[in-house]
């Protein structure tokens, strides 16, 4: 039988947020790349919430941007409302979140993909991976076509053996009624890959015309919008914004839910997958937090050219009739018309323990993966992994050293390390509390943290990289200048301090000391800083934060120093822990299972004690010296 055979450097399976970043990274690094999607219309689809960013996810987007990814640029061009969350809190937790015009987001990303050199888009279902000698050699589609390649990146999202459920209704489709991928799972299992079954869910979409907004509180975007991408001109994002709307559930809503719990596929035991605890369905909220008499509901527009409104806070898998009654019990939704039902979706994903921190499979060379397929959740988490998987697949194909971001360098590092090192039994969401060095991993300094890596990999161009380097110099110089500029107790100084209710000076001090005062900042002391020259806002922001939080930042830097010591100690590939008789059996089993790449990673595996790490260090030292 003759079938189509084609050759590429890299095959990307899936065109969601992970697949897009992966395919772009590979093709931009000059490798012939083909992206498979079950439906070209579903490229960069946002099947759930209509926004990008938010707490800690905003950090991820900034990091993706700093490494040369596309998500930040894409949302800057397609957002319809933007807000910096946590503005009253410390800079480490400021988080940018933008509402997207979903259709526009998807259309623009598709356009970028279509116009990228070396990138081919193909609508087809990938049914098999081809592995020879523990090495990937290609994939086969459902139609039988063979695509030979050097690396494969799996970004199948929620499509593998997917089924959507509400009440007793089960649709064997991917999200939004799209065709699911029903063959690939079997092929992966045949190749020894351990699969999990996860679930997630989404609320209904309601016709805007049927909503009474007078009963809701209007939620505006920020007056001055900040872009996600370093490359976006701040003036270009000052657009007319759309509003979101806040309303609440009530006792009646909860009563309707409680009375029908037995008809929920989750409570009835039909759903097998493990759902995320952080975005519980409204049923879960009512059951788990029974003492709360109301829950917030956000109505968010899905785009400029659609009447569909997303009902944030009320995802559900209750039957259609219950959904109607439930939504209509909410103030302002009395006459609500549902466009799309809420549903839960179940899908196959992998146990991410099988991956190295490069996102390559430990047991199958050249096979990479990213996104929900790896057991994460969220567009941003997916894009971040897609980007790293893409970069590494490309670097490997080019024979160059792959990149691993560690926990002290990026949220992306935390995300991937958590996925591959911890035993993860639910869809993983990024949170700022997961980052132990979060004072250093701020969204405002992502570009300074990661441009070097992005540039070295080849995704950040020289021009941008040099601009960042120049800014870094300016930051350093400006901090030094403030530390060495002294002001006395002149009337002008005292007046300024008084104006900001700051204690007057007894004797002279340097300007950096004044910036440190909680009630003052770099900007407000401008009148008494006579030698100040005008600097880019991005520069002065860093100057202000670095001086203001110096004590805290220094402490974390010290911790990072300790952390790096063992993080940098590499463990040889395919190391056999059974030969170390001094290791406890539990530790040996865990280490053999996870095959950590460094002593640092080994120390984070649950069940491996500090004493085991000591033993390991001693053993590796002996090994090193014998060579």
């Amino acid at each position, binding site marked *: 039988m003759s079938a189509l055979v084609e050759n590429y450097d890299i095959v990307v399976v899936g065109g969601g947020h992970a697949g897009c970043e992966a395919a772009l990274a590979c093709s931009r690094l000059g490798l012939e790349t083909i992206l498979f999607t079950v439906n070209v219309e579903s490229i960069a689809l946002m099947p759930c*919430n209509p926004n990008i960013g938010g*707490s*800690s996810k905003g950090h991820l987007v900034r990091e993706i941007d700093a490494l040369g990814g596309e998500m930040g640029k894409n949302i800057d061009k397609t957002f319809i409302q933007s807000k910096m*969350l*946590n503005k*009253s*809190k*410390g800079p*480490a*937790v400021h988080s940018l979140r933008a509402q997207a015009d979903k259709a526009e987001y998807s259309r623009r990303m598709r356009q970028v993909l279509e116009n990228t050199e070396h990138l081919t888009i193909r609508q087809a279902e990938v049914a098999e991976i081809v592995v020879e000698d523990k090495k990937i050699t290609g994939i086969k589609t459902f139609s039988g076509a063979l695509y030979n390649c050097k690396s494969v990146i799996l970004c199948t999202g929620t499509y593998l053996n997917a089924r959507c459920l509400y009440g007793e209704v089960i649709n064997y489709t991917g999200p939004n009624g799209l065709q699911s991928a029903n063959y690939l799972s079997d092929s992966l299992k045949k190749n020894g890959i351990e699969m999990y079954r996860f679930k997630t869910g989404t609320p209904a979409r309601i016709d805007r015309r049927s909503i009474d907004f007078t009963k809701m509180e209007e939620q505006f975007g920020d007056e001055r919008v900040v872009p996600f991408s370093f490359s976006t001109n701040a003036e270009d994002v000052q657009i007319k914004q759309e509003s979101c709307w806040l309303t609440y559930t009530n006792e009646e809503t909860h009563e309707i839910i409680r009375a029908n719990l037995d008809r929920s596929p989750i409570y009835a035991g039909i759903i097998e997958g493990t759902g995320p*605890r*952080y*975005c*519980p369905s409204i049923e879960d*909220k009512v059951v*788990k*937090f029974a003492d*709360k008499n109301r*829950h*917030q509901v*956000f109505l968010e527009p899905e785009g400029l050219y659609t009447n569909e409104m997303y009902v*944030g*806070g009320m*995802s559900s898998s209750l039957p259609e009739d219950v959904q109607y009654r439930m939504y209509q019990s909410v103030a302002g939704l009395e006459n609500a018309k549902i466009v799309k039902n809420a549903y839960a979706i179940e899908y196959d994903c992998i146990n991410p323990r099988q991956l190295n921190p490069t996102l390559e499979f430990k047991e199958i060379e050249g096979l990479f993966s990213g996104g929900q397929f790896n057991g994460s959740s969220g567009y941003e988490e997916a894009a971040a992994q897609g980007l790293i998987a893409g970069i590494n697949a490309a670097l490997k194909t080019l024979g160059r050293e792959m990149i691993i971001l560690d926990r002290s360098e990026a949220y992306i590092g935390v995300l991937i390390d958590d996925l591959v090192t*911890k035993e993860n039994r639910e869809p993983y969401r990024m*949170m*700022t*509390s*997961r980052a132990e060095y*979060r*004072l250093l991993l701020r969204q405002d300094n992502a570009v300074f943290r990661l441009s070097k890596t992005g540039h070295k990999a080849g995704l950040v161009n020289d021009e941008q990289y040099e601009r960042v380097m120049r800014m870094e110099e300016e930051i350093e110089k400006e901090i030094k200048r403030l530390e060495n500029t002294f002001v006395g107790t002149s009337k002008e100084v005292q007046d300024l301090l008084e104006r900001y209710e700051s204690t007057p000076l007894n004797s002279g001090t340097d300007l950096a000391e004044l910036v440190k005062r*909680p*009630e003052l900042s770099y900007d407000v002391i401008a009148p008494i800083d006579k030698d100040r020259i005008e600097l880019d806002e991005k520069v002065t922001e860093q100057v202000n934060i670095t001086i203001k939080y110096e004590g*805290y930042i220094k402490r974390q830097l010290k911790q990072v120093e*300790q952390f790096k*010591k063992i993080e940098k100690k590499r463990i040889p590939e395919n190391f056999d822990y059974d030969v*170390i*008789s*001094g290791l406890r059996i539990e530790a040996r089993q865990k280490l053999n299972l996870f095959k950590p790449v460094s002593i640092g990673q080994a120390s984070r595996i*649950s069940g491996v*004690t*500090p*004493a085991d790490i*000591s*033993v390991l*260090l*001693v*053993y590796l*030292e*002996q090994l090193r*010296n*014998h060579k």
Partner: protein
Amino acid sequence: MKWDTIAAIATAMSNSGIGIVRVSGENAVEIVDKIFKSAKKNKKLSEVDTHTIHYGHIYDGDEMIDEVMVVLMKGPNSYTREDSVEIDCHGGILVVQRVLETVIKNGARCAEPGEFTKRAFLNGRIDLSQAEAVIDVINSKNNFALKNSLNQLKGSVQSKIKNIRERLIYHIAFIESALDDPEHISLDGYSDELTVVVDEVMQELEQLLERADDGKILKEGIKTVIVGKPNVGKSSLLNHLVGEDRAIVTNIAGTTRDIIEENINLRGVSLNIIDTAGIRDTDDVVEKIGVEKSIQYANDADLIIYVVDSSTKLDENDEQIIEMLKGRKAVIILNKTDLDMVTTEDMLIKKTENFVIPVSVKENKGIDLLEKTIQNMFIKGTVELNDEVYITNIRQKSLISNAFESLKLVKNSIMDDMPEDFYSIDLMDAYESLGQVIGEAMEDDLVNQIFSKFCMGK
């Protein structure tokens, strides 16, 4: 590779002669310089030649702790190949502990079991062929320490720390939930609430630290049982030993409600005394039960203090106990010598090989001899105590004090009007330090707490 600076007691603790505190690492010299005052004015260890010995005193602030000899060994010519300082102390076990604590207070970390050996190896000091042996040392010391650190921590202290940790993680989770989902959870006015909690916890930690100072957070010491028939004066002996000046009064209930445990420090020897005085009842048969129970406790003890009433005759119960004491480490107290003697010292000596000490608790006679006797048994090694106990205490204490310091930082952040996300960083440090005290790792505590206690959006 450069590691942080560690310290430990390098000598066995079973005698009260010389004890050596060993300090190793980058800042070893600097740290000891902070607390060592040479007999020769202004002599600094950082300025003297390596491999020299110096005489002087160790100070904790203004307080002089001990007269010492200090040996300076700069790396790589030391056991660990790092800069090392050995402090030879003379004042007995308690003093050695104080010196170690002072070193830790000034920037060293309490060494993990086997850590000196590990460093010596990693720094190339120990022959590679000995790797297996090094691993064995690490393992055996760790197993021992692990077993002991938890076993030794008093139940009441464990539950106290658990309770504090629960409160801390609740508040951390609350802050973090609000940061993750600012549109659902507000932190308005929260810093006042947190201040109250932090103040409370700091106070509780302070109490724990005070108790730790007296060695009272551990069930440490020689396991000692006081046995004897009812009314022979067991309780008054115990009370007398405990005394006001040694006042330790953390009673914890044992497996039965009747048992009272006390930690006392007797001339530098730590005794963990189980008083079986409460085994008494009004029923006739109980006397026998009392004896049986006493024997049961005595079987587990390292040291038995048997109290006899000199004003009454020995009966068959006494004979039974004396029989049991054969071959055991025991001291026999002949109490109530202020009354007319019916049972005499000679009568007892004939029956036993154990020490017999005539005492009148009431008139405070003979107690001195009792204390000396026990101290001597300890020094001569008749009764042994594992040194790990002391180390454990110091380690726990430094961890609790780390937690205390972290909470101080939280207070500072609140006072400086820092945003809430700064609070949780130091709260988390406190939570972790306390977790190490009771041997609990972090794992996913925080995330679990966030999801279970606070309703997040979407």
